């Protein structure tokens, strides 16, 4: 169903509900009704994204044999990687770094996000010790490059090359996670 059609359907439902609520002494303004419709659309879109992924994962799970000592649920790891990348994109799209200092800040936050994501993946048994250690080392390299970029900024120099180094490390890390996902599946 198209978003506009869905919005119209929700709008009619909310309008009818608003009329009914008047009998109970509850009045909804037009703005409140619009907010309710927006919230319903967000919920429906979110469910529409999650449900097919859940169904697909369950079907894959039935075909996949359990590995001794646990299993690597790379579909979730892929989801985590995707969520991280989406977060990075979200950060870039919502507030694009306009100054070198903002670019340095964005790099630090991206590193922190990836570290938190990897911590969750390791905690839940999605990556082993070796992979965790490798991720930590690469993140440390990215952090050092970003710190050098910060020093360049403070010295009035161009930090671009250092920031590009950090970005390349983070991108390569993301790509390796995706390769691992594809290899397992």
């Amino acid at each position, binding site marked *: 169903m198209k978003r506009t059609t869905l919005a119209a359907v929700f709008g009619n439902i909310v309008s009818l509900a608003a009329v009914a609520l008047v009998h109970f002494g509850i009045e909804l303004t037009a703005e409140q009704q619009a907010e309710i419709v927006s919230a319903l659309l967000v919920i429906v879109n979110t469910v529409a994204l999650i449900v097919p992924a859940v169904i697909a994962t369950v079907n894959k799970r039935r075909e996949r044999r359990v590995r001794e000592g646990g299993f690597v649920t790379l579909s979730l790891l892929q989801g985590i990687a995707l969520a991280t990348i989406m*977060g990075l994109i979200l950060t870039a799209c*919502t507030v694009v770094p306009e100054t070198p200092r903002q670019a340095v800040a964005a790099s630090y936050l991206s590193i*922190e996000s990836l570290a938190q994501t990897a911590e969750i993946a*390791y905690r839940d048994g999605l990556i082993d010790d070796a992979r965790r250690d490798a991720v930590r080392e690469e993140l440390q390299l990215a952090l050092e490059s970003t710190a050098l970029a910060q020093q360049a900024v403070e010295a009035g120099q161009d930090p671009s090359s250092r920031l590009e180094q950090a970005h390349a490390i983070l991108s390569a890390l993301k790509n390796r996670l995706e390769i691992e996902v594809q290899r397992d599946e």
Partner: protein
Amino acid sequence: MSNAADALLVVTRLLSALEAAMAVAGNAQRFRVLVSQAVAEGRDLTDAELNELRADAQAAIDRLGG
């Protein structure tokens, strides 16, 4: 494995993914707030703010080490 176990497994995995997504979203929001405050005050990000971000990133890496 039973369907119920599969479903529980999937829910657990999704919760982990959501937790990761929330962490990322939280950092994205932190960036927006920092930049918004700086812009509102007519300045760029300060050395102290960048140092704090660096320290937090280092702390996250250190936690990853166990």
